């Protein structure tokens, strides 16, 4: 039964990867990466039960905690870019 969940998860990973490759906008790709991260958490959790080494659930926990940082870094990147563009525009006007 674990196999069913694992197969569903890796097929979804493939679908998310397709979305990341197709785009079209950068936000779609960020969404796909985010989704891929959650699927990784699930896959690692189920795989550690499948292998009989439940104590390795730590890995899934790391991803659950740290995936968030990537999204915030993206947000900060967009914010900086918007700010820089605004600064350049105001320089042109002045």
């Amino acid at each position, binding site marked *: 039964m674990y196999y069913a*969940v694992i197969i569903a*998860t890796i097929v979804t990973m493939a679908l998310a990867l397709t979305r990341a490759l197709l785009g079209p906008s950068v936000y779609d790709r960020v969404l796909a990466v985010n989704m891929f991260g959650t699927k990784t958490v699930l896959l690692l*959790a189920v795989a550690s039960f499948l292998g009989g080494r439940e104590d390795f*659930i730590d890995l899934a926990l790391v991803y659950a905690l740290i995936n968030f940082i990537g999204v915030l870094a993206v947000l900060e990147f967009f914010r900086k870019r918007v700010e820089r563009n605004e600064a350049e525009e105001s320089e042109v006007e002045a």
Partner: protein
Amino acid sequence: MTAAIDIASWILLTTGGLAVLVGGIGALRMPDLYTRMHAASVTDSLGAILVLVGLMLQGGLTLVTAKLAAILLFLVLTSPTSSNALASAALLAGTRPMGDRHGPDSGDTP
């Protein structure tokens, strides 16, 4: 009793897997960013909750279950926040939801 818990856990795991798959298909097939985000959130919330609760039933009253509960808590907290951050970034950058009749490209000013 253990058989009942096993059956419940299998049901949860299977439906969770199904929810994950459905969300994945949705994220691929939906027409624009915001609808895709909606589909992806099915895998992040419903799918993750079902699968992790199913695993918790398998784990029994151990440290593993506590860690699974922590994973569930963090996922439930972070994935909607990520969606929110992403959607607000996209909206600020000028991506309009489909069918938004007051967008800059739609032509009819409110």
